[in-house]
């Protein structure tokens, strides 16, 4: 039986277990949308600042749930993986002919599926509420591809935390750090309007800014090659590094002779 079929079995398991924990699921969809409602309602005045890229704060803020959703997905990926390690389920899997790459693919594919589903919901809700989508229909596959890559990238970081620590609590503990990263980015203001120097510097070095700006470019500008290249580049780099580190960590975690 191929690695592909093995990964398929694990994806199925991961989907089943995700759907059977509706509380987690609702939270990862509702929380970003709730924050979106609050910020787009309260911060609309920001659009009057000269240089603000759009007249709709909703359109501007809609990029944030995509990142938050990916963070939630990553958190659940990491927690699930850690639970498997803690419970010994990973040892059970290790005793079957399952390959490490199939295991990793199986674990991450579940996250990616969740991330994609979130992206669809966030976009649908945003558009229904009147947000713009400048790139048009052709931008949809680009937006979803970017979402998948972002979720995969964060997902590998969640999985890495699980593999290195073997503890669900450690993964949960790492989660707020991601939110700090999100906060210290261009999540609530475009970088050109940031007046505090250190904040501007941090946001400029923070890859999350470029993920946001790539999503935002599709919503506000249409087709911005540079923003898209930076976004895909950052997400891709995180994903590649994450997958590499995960497979290394898995080699020590899933020891078998």
């Amino acid at each position, binding site marked *: 039986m191929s690695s592909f079929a093995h990964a398929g079995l694990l994806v199925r398991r991961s989907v089943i277990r995700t759907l059977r924990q509706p509380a987690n699921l609702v939270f990862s969809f509702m929380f970003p949308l709730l924050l979106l409602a609050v910020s787009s309602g309260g911060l609309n005045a920001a659009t009057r600042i000269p240089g603000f890229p759009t007249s709709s704060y909703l359109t501007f803020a809609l990029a944030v749930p995509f990142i938050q959703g990916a963070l939630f997905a990553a958190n659940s990926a990491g927690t699930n993986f850690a639970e498997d390690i803690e419970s010994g389920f990973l040892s059970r899997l290790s*005793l079957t002919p399952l390959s490490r790459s199939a295991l990793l693919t199986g674990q991450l594919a579940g996250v990616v599926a969740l991330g994609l589903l979130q992206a669809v919901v966030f976009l649908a809700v945003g558009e229904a509420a009147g947000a713009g989508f400048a790139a048009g229909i052709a931008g949809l596959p680009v937006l979803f591809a970017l979402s998948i890559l972002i979720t995969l990238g964060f997902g590998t970081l969640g999985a890495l935390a699980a593999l290195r620590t073997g503890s669900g609590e450690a993964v949960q503990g790492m989660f707020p750090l991601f939110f700090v990263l999100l906060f210290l980015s261009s999540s609530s203001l475009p970088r050109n309007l940031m007046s505090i120097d250190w904040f501007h510097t941090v946001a400029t070095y923070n890859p999350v800014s470029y993920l946001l700006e790539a999503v935002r470019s599709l919503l506000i500008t249409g087709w911005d090659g540079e923003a898209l290249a930076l976004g895909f580049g950052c997400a891709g780099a995180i994903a590649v590094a994450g997958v590499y580190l995960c497979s290394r960590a898995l080699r020590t975690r899933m020891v078998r002779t």
Partner: protein
Amino acid sequence: MSEPNGIEVEGLVRVFKKGPRAVDGIDLEVAPGEIYGFLGPNGAGKSTTVLMLTTLLPPTEGTARVAGFDVVRDGGKVRMAIGAALQEAALDPFLTGREHMRLQGGLHGLDRRERERRGNELLERVGLSEAADRKVGGYSGGMKRRLDLGLALVHRPRILFLDEPTTGLDIQSRTALWDEVSRLSKEDGVTVFLTTQYLEEADVLADRVGIIDHGRIVAEGTPAALKAEIGRVHVEAEPADEDDRGRLNAILDRCGGDLTAIVRELDREGIRVAHLTVHEPSLDDVFLAKTGRSLEGAGADEDEVLEEALA
């Protein structure tokens, strides 16, 4: 060259970086179809040994052949031949029993139809047919262990490793599991390597027992031979008439554990007995004799030792 479904271990050692010599030079041999009971207190090195024999932990020194394959060089072939239910049934609480069977069957390469057939057969066998479509999170401890055992059998392994399969179970669940393990050995010829900290379990189930303490095997043999080695049957009696006590004790001293001789002597001398007990040496006596400690309550928690050592 070992038989294809036996186990041969020579000089097996496992040292953890920050920890003790968890396994300190073990030699043992398990014959095909035999139930081998690996008995010892917590922290003795039982689980570490099982992890090495199931290829999940590389040995520091020594060799082990399982089903005729070296655990280090031919890990993949060993895994094909063995089934294992490791400590604490490792199950996904959100999946049903049947979904576990499907996953396990699929990972072992069974096609869809065979997966269903084999899954149903095993669920029936371990008495979980009715609970098959319930989530495992709601199973009792005994049901989880039975499912764990069933999952270990999906690919028809020739050797089965059970690491403390009945720890924490009530007596009914324990007996049900014993019956199943013994059936596997007798009817299907499966070799069973079973660790336990329960004397009774080793006594009832095992054809041969190895007693392990501080990473070393301190005694090995059939339960009967081990008991015979450390002492014979010991008889205690209370006379019906207190005046006979002296003569009674003299007879008991003279005859040792020979019950027939004791009864004959008592009859000849006309002594009436109010109470008579026959003490057979237990495996705990064997453990006491070999280590100077009682098995019950001895030892540290091996899980903790393992976790610390691996950290």
